[in-house]
C-alpha cells in the first residue's frame, strides 16, 4: 500500500516551486493569447474547487472515507458570507471566519457519531445531511432568497484594496490554494499523515498499533469541511450570486468525480481533477451542445476504466511504457 504514496521532500519542493511559478505566470500568458484570456475566469473556479478537493482528497484518498456532504459545507460558507454581508454589511473576512466556525461545528456534529463506526456510514449520513441542507436553503426564503438565489453579494477586498478584477481574484484564490496545498502536503508527511495512511490500509491494524482511528478521521473530516466553507465564501464573493442548486448533492458527487479522475492517492491529483472536470463542464464540452452529458459520462467511464490511478498517473504510465 505504501508505494502508492511516494512522498519525498525534495521532489515536492521542486514540484511546488514549478507549480507556483506556473500559476503566477499564467495570467500574464493568458492575457496575451486570444481565446485564452477567458481561461483565467475558469481558473478562478478551478481554484475554488481545488481548495475543496485537496482537503477531500485527504479524507478519501488517505483516510478512506467517502463524504457526500461537502457541497453543503461549501454552501454553508457561501450562504453565511452571502447573507451576512448582503443583509448586515459586515466585513467579508469576518463572515468567512464565521462560516469556518459554523462548518467546523456542524462537521463535528455529523462526523463524530458516524466516523466512530466502521464502514461507510459517513457516506450515508452526509448524503442525508446534504439533501436536508439544500431543502433548508430553498425553504428559508426570507433569509436565503429561496430557489431564485441571493444576488448582489458584495465583492471582497484586502485592507481597502478591492479585488474587483478577474486577475486580482485569481491571485487571491490561487494564493489560498497554494497555502492549503502546502499545509496538506505537510500533514501527509507528518505523524497525522502516517496515521491516516495506516487507517486506509487497515483500520484494525492501525488501532492495534495505538492509532486513535476515530480521532484522526474526525479531525480530517472537520478540516475538509472548514476548507470547503472557505471555498464557499470565496465563491460567493466572486460570483456575487448564490443559489441552492450550486450546493446540492450533485455538486458533492461532482467533487468525488474530480478526485477520482485526478487521482485519489495524490494531492496533485485533486488539483488536476478539479481542473479537468471544471474545464470539461464549463468550457470544452460546450461545443458538443446537447451531447455534452453523454460525452462527459463517456470520459468519466474511460478514465475510470483505463486510468484507475487518475489523470495524474499518466506521466508515470507513459514513463513505464517508455522504460519497457
Amino acid at each position: 500500500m505504501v508505494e502508492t504514496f511516494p512522498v519525498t521532500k525534495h521532489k515536492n519542493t521542486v514540484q511546488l516551486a514549478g507549480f507556483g511559478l506556473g500559476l503566477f505566470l499564467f495570467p500574464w500568458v493568458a492575457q496575451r493569447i486570444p481565446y485564452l484570456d477567458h481561461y483565467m475566469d475558469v481558473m478562478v473556479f478551478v481554484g475554488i474547487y481545488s481548495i475543496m478537493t485537496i482537503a477531500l482528497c485527504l479524507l478519501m484518498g488517505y483516510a478512506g472515507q467517502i463524504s457526500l456532504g461537502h457541497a453543503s459545507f461549501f454552501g454553508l460558507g457561501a450562504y453565511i458570507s452571502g447573507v451576512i454581508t448582503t443583509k448586515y454589511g459586515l466585513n467579508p473576512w469576518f463572515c468567512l471566519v464565521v462560516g469556518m466556525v459554523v462548518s467546523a461545528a456542524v462537521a463535528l456534529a455529523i462526523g463524530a457519531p458516524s466516523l466512530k463506526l466502521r464502514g461507510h456510514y459517513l457516506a450515508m449520513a452526509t448524503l442525508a445531511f446534504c439533501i436536508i441542507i439544500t431543502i433548508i436553503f430553498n425553504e428559508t426564503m426570507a433569509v436565503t432568497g429561496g430557489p431564485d438565489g441571493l444576488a448582489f453579494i458584495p465583492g471582497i477586498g484586502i485592507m481597502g484594496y478591492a479585488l474587483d478584477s478577474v486577475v486580482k481574484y485569481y491571485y487571491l484564490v490561487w494564493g489560498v490554494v497554494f497555502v492549503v496545498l502546502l499545509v496538506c502536503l505537510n500533514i501527509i508527511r507528518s505523524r497525522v499523515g502516517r496515521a491516516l495512511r495506516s487507517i486506509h490500509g487497515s483500520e484494525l491494524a492501525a488501532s492495534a498499533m495505538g492509532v486513535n482511528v476515530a480521532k484522526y478521521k474526525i479531525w480530517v473530516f472537520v478540516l475538509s469541511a472548514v476548507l470547503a466553507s472557505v471555498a464557499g465564501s470565496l465563491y460567493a464573493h466572486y460570483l456575487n450570486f448564490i443559489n441552492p442548486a450550486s450546493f446540492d448533492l450533485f455538486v458533492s458527487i461532482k467533487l468525488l468525480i474530480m478526485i477520482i479522475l485526478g487521482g485519489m492517492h495524490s494531492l496533485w491529483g485533486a488539483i488536476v481533477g478539479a481542473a479537468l472536470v471544471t474545464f470539461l463542464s464549463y468550457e470544452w464540452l460546450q461545443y458538443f451542445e446537447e451531447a455534452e452529458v453523454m460525452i462527459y459520462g463517456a470520459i468519466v467511464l474511460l478514465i475510470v476504466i483505463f486510468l484507475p490511478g487518475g489523470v495524474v498517473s499518466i506521466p508515470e504510465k507513459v514513463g513505464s511504457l517508455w522504460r519497457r
Partner: protein
Amino acid sequence: MEEITLASQLLQYTITGITIGSIYAMVAIGFNTIYNVTEAINFAQGEFVMLGGLVMVFFRVTLNIPVVFSLPLTILVVTTVGILLDRLAIRPIRKPSVLVMVIATIGASFLIRGAAMFIWGKNPFDLPPFSGRNPMTFWGAVVQPQALWVIGFLVVVVIVLTLFFDRTIMGKALRACAVNPNASSLVGINVKYMILVSFALSAAIGALGGIVITPISLMEYDRGAMLAVKGFSACALGGMGSFSGAIIGGLIIGLIESLGAGLISSGYKDVFALLVLLVVLFVKPSGLLGSVEVSKIRKF
C-alpha cells in the same frame, strides 16, 4: 360540497405513502441486489427505472403493443442495458475498488441519461394505466387502480426473489458472494458471472418499477437521479443488503413523506424522512433490519 373526515384523510395519506413507498422499495431492492455481490452502490439504478418507463412508452404507445407483450419486451431491453453496463463499464475496471465502481456507475448514469435525452427528448411521457383510470373509493379515501398494480408488482418481485435466492442454485451462489466473495470463488463460484447476473437482475427490477410508476407520475429522461436518491435512502434506512429492510425502508420513507406533507408541512416533507434516516443510522448504524455481523466485514 362533501366533507372529508380526518379518518379518511389519514387513510388517504397512508394509501399514497404505501404507493410511493413501494416504488422506493423497488429501487432499493435493485440497489441491494448489486450491493450484495459487489459492495458498490450502483448510481445508475435510477436510470434503469427511467429507461423502464420510457422503453415501455415506446412499445406500448408508439408501437401500440398490448401490455402482456410490451412489459416483458421492456424488461428484456432494460436487462440488456444492465448486462451491457456490467460488461462495458464494470468488468473492464482493472483495480475494482468500491469507490472506483461507484464513480463508474455515475459515469454510466450520465451516459444513459444523455442517450435517453437524445432518443426521447426532454418532455415527459405518459403511459395508459393497466386497468383504466376510474378510481375506487374506500371510506372516503381514493385508490387509483394503478396504485394496486404498483403494490401488486412489489409483492410479486419479493416472492419471486425470495424463491430465487432460497430455492435455486444461482440464487444461493449469489447469496454466497454476498457473504464472502473470496470464499465463494474458492468453492468454484464464478464471481464475475454473479456480478453480471446481479446487474441483469437489478436492471429488470428497476425496469419493472419504471413501468408501473409511469402511468401515475409520467416519465422523463432526468427523473432517475431523484428516484436513485430516494431508493438509496430507503436502502440505508432498512439496512444495506437486506431485502426485507429495503421494503420496510421504502414504505417508511413513503409514509413519512405522505403523512408529513399532509399533517405537518409539505415543504419539509423530505427533511422528515431524512431526519429519521439520520437518527436510525446514529442509533442502529446497520439500519433497521441490517445485520451487524455482515456490516462489520463489509468495506462499504
